[in-house]
């Protein structure tokens, strides 16, 4: 049997290395108005490995800086605190999971989709006058439960991918059929354990919701961004499929066709540049 019980998942989650505490503080600060930037910058700088990875991302061609930044304080001065906060989070997540992938999992399409969804969610949030950085973070993390499965249940996840290939279905359906639970629930469990902001937890838990009823704006944005980036084929995964998305969600977003086209176009343009960050 390949089924996985939530208790088993939780045990594996508890055994994962914690995110650096400063990353958790940064994530908590997303919803705060009064942010102690200096204090957080000092804490980031104290983690040398995290600082090095963050600066490598900051110096990638995506940000197009003419001069290299050499310290976190310089990065904040030039890119702004919010951008650096996103960079630190991205660097920490890449680090947490990067050494644990197995040969059967192609990480590149996963990260391409995560990054594309983050960008698209941010663009949608801008159109909706919602918090763009929170949307970016939730988009970046929306499939994080999949990384738990890939790294902690390798044989079972290989069976899941084989099922998907055999039945030409989406990974969500394959996970439910083979494992008995899906990456959205696992992502929720992980981000709950890591004490991410409640709004981000909910967006991750509900990103495959088949109803838009009662979903807050952030969750709606992530559901839509996930579907849009699949439809734009930005992951370049030949097995990719656009997931189910209910018609009511588009009504709830309330965006005109032109506004949506602007989101598509902006997402594609930014993604081409941002994807270079993944190989920085």
């Amino acid at each position: 049997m390949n089924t996985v019980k939530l208790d088993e998942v939780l045990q594996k989650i508890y055994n994962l290395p914690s995110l650096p505490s400063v990353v958790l503080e940064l994530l908590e600060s997303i919803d705060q108005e009064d942010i102690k930037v200096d204090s957080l910058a000092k804490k980031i700088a104290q983690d040398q490995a995290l600082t090095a990875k963050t600066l490598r991302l900051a110096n990638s061609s995506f940000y197009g800086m003419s001069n290299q930044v050499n310290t976190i304080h310089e990065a904040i001065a030039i890119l702004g605190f919010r951008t650096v906060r996103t960079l630190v989070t991205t660097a920490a997540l890449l680090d947490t999971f990067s050494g644990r992938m197995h040969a059967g999992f192609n990480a590149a399409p996963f990260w391409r989709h995560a990054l594309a969804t983050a960008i698209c969610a941010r663009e949608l949030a801008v159109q909706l006058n919602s918090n763009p950085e929170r949307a970016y973070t939730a988009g970046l993390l929306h499939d994080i439960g999949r990384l738990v499965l890939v790294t902690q249940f390798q044989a079972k996840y290989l069976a899941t991918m084989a099922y998907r290939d055999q039945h030409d279905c989406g990974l969500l359906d394959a996970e439910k059929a083979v494992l008995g639970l899906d990456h959205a629930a696992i992502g929720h469990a992980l981000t709950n354990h890591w004490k991410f902001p409640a709004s981000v937890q909910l967006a991750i838990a509900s990103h495959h919701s088949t109803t838009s009823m009662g979903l807050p704006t952030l969750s709606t944005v992530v559901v839509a961004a996930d579907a849009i980036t699949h439809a734009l084929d930005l992951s370049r995964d030949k097995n990719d499929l656009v997931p189910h998305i209910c018609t009511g969600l588009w009504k709830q977003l309330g965006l005109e066709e032109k506004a949506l086209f602007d989101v598509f176009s902006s997402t594609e343009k930014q993604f081409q540049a941002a994807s270079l960050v993944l190989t920085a």
Partner: protein
Amino acid sequence: MSKQKHPLTRNQTATDLPLQNDLQDANPESPVQRQQQKEHLSRLFRQLEQSPDGLYLQGLMARYRGIDEP
């Protein structure tokens, strides 16, 4: 990105088609490229073909790509 053409052959299936990204700077007036875009879009939406919930986004994408609606 190269401007390489992706001619369809009689035996080519949808899964053999180039990815959407490879088609984006193709000449939108080219009937072959437009056909490829349509088939590619159909492939991405193949799970939702019978679902009214998939039609809105598929139609939106078709208009965005400048190809006929499904």
